[in-house]
């Protein structure tokens, strides 16, 4: 065990989760790597009330895309649809290629694009769970305000790296 490693383990403000990079949220308001999938929500280009739920399973690289009402995406045959492409693009912006490819266990050739590695074919899955996670995510912005100091946030400094 070297000294640096010990020092990290004995630090109270050791960084565990890297902050995500800023990106444009209009098209893909929600992306996450959770439950063994890269999943997210893509706003429909034509209907402001509609969103698509897109997901790619880690390991198998199978994918699915459906509306929030669980209707299959019309663009999904043979290859990933445009929603899945947007999902992958935005995930790479948000987390970086290395993290996303690593999570999906996808091999990306040097200077290659991750989307071409997503070739597991369509596997229907329930989009409802992802959509409800998105709603839960949005609900953070609507929580009642609280006043007073939050001393525990001293463990969570804002900063790079």
């Amino acid at each position, binding site marked *: 065990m070297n000294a640096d*490693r010990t*020092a*990290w*383990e*004995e*630090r*109270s*403000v*050791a*960084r*565990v*989760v890297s*902050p*995500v*990079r*800023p*990106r*444009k*949220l*209009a098209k893909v*308001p*929600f*992306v996450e790597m*959770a*439950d063994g999938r890269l999943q997210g929500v893509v*706003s429909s280009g034509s209907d*402001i*009330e509609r*969103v698509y739920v897109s997901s790619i399973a880690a390991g198998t690289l199978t994918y699915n895309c459906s509306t*929030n009402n669980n209707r299959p995406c019309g663009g999904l045959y043979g290859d990933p649809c445009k929603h899945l492409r947007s999902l992958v693009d935005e995930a790479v912006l*948000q987390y970086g290629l290395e993290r996303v490819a690593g999570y999906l266990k996808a091999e990306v050739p040097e200077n290659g694009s991750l989307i071409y590695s997503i070739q597991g074919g369509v596997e229907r899955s329930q989009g409802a769970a992802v959509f409800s996670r*998105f*709603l*839960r*995510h*949005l*609900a*953070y*912005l*609507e*929580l*009642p*305000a*609280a*006043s*007073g*100091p*939050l*001393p*525990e*946030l*001293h*463990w*969570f*400094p*804002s*900063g*790079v*790296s």
Partner: protein
Amino acid sequence: MLSVQVAELTGEPLKGVNEALDLVTGFDDALVNGFARLGEERAAALTALAGAMAATPVGGRLGEAAGKVAAGSVAEEHVTALAGGRTALLGAVHDALLGSLDAAIGRTRASWEEPPVTAESDNLLSGCRSWLSELAITGWRGVDHDLAAAVDQTMEALLAEPRLRRLAVLLDGLATELRASSPVAAMEKVPARRWADLWARALLLTQAGGLPPAAGEPVSGRLLPLGVDVHEHATAVQAQVHAIFEPADGGPCRLVRTSVAAMKVDTIVGTAVWRLLTGSPVLLKALANHLSLDIKDMPLLNSGDLVWHDDRAALGDLADPFATARIQLGGALAPAVPPLDRHPVRIAEPVLVEGYTVPKGEEVVFDLDGARLTVDVERLPTCGPLTPELVRGSESCIGLVRWDGGRWLLQPLAVQGTVKKKPVTAHNGDWAEGATDPKVAKAEARNGDAVAVLRERAGRLLRK
């Protein structure tokens, strides 16, 4: 801070601190593997911690808890007692460290007055306690997706309750890290001190009376900001302003903090976090423009925290934080630290450092005639203009003295210096009303208003 002050602070290690931290490290190691699988060595670490605290008021309970847990009987009350023992020990380390800092920089500190505490508990708190006990029994190495997510439902209810926001923000931060790290068994190394810190604090906050009331005395006077410290995790942000308070009734100047916070999501980062705090426009304007504030009947807690009410504040005159630091920081009365908050991580004492050189090297260090203070450039918030380069090129710095990983650090809040022969001044709060750097503003415009986009989506989709 003068050279002699830095030398005094960073000189001889404090008596007993390392010994106390060794006991904490032993405890943290036990928590990595879980109280259910202690083994002889780790059981001995808990017994040693209890032994060191034997003469204190918690000694009896702690000894009993260590004995029971070592014997394989892990009940919630024993886990709680052990968390209390660890907390008390780190409280003592905090006191020693802060005491030596106060002595080195000649800071006078008020003594603590305990407000009346009302003890209440409810189902929500007991739900949190069960999860925390389960974590202790399992150990960090045993945490998987299911255990990390087991708190999700409790979390949702907790977040909806502003009264419990402190606990909610802490638990959500811990749960996010555990989820991202699951399965923890596959992690190369575990942030043992950090997670034990978060776990122990959470367990204490879930006790009856663990969340103290925040009433405070209404005060009026002038507030002169020194700088702003920004705290942030995936779902919360807090801007904590350090300031000098001049009471209108002519009492002594005091060092105070005031905080504004908001809940957020992980994709709201960088300068966008200020948009979540626009409910306090007066405070943000004062930060962005270096103005003083006139406050009226604002509650001041015994901890030195002003509970911010934007409608009780009015903008004052231009007040250069460097002038405030030079003239008033030295003589201001520092606040006491609430008993439960006593942990080295909370040490954040504003100081002014000038007349240093920055030797070349990987680490940024301020050298004052041979006395060296390491600068924590990982702690420069992404929502402000400070960069490691600006800090390296600086000549004066308002910063917070902090302590972590066994050493003192300086966290810059503002710097003055010369870059390419031009004088440059940068404060963490400069972009509170939007980025003033054209390059950053352009990047911001390209990404659009993250807060507005998500609020629109919430408005359309949440209420269906």
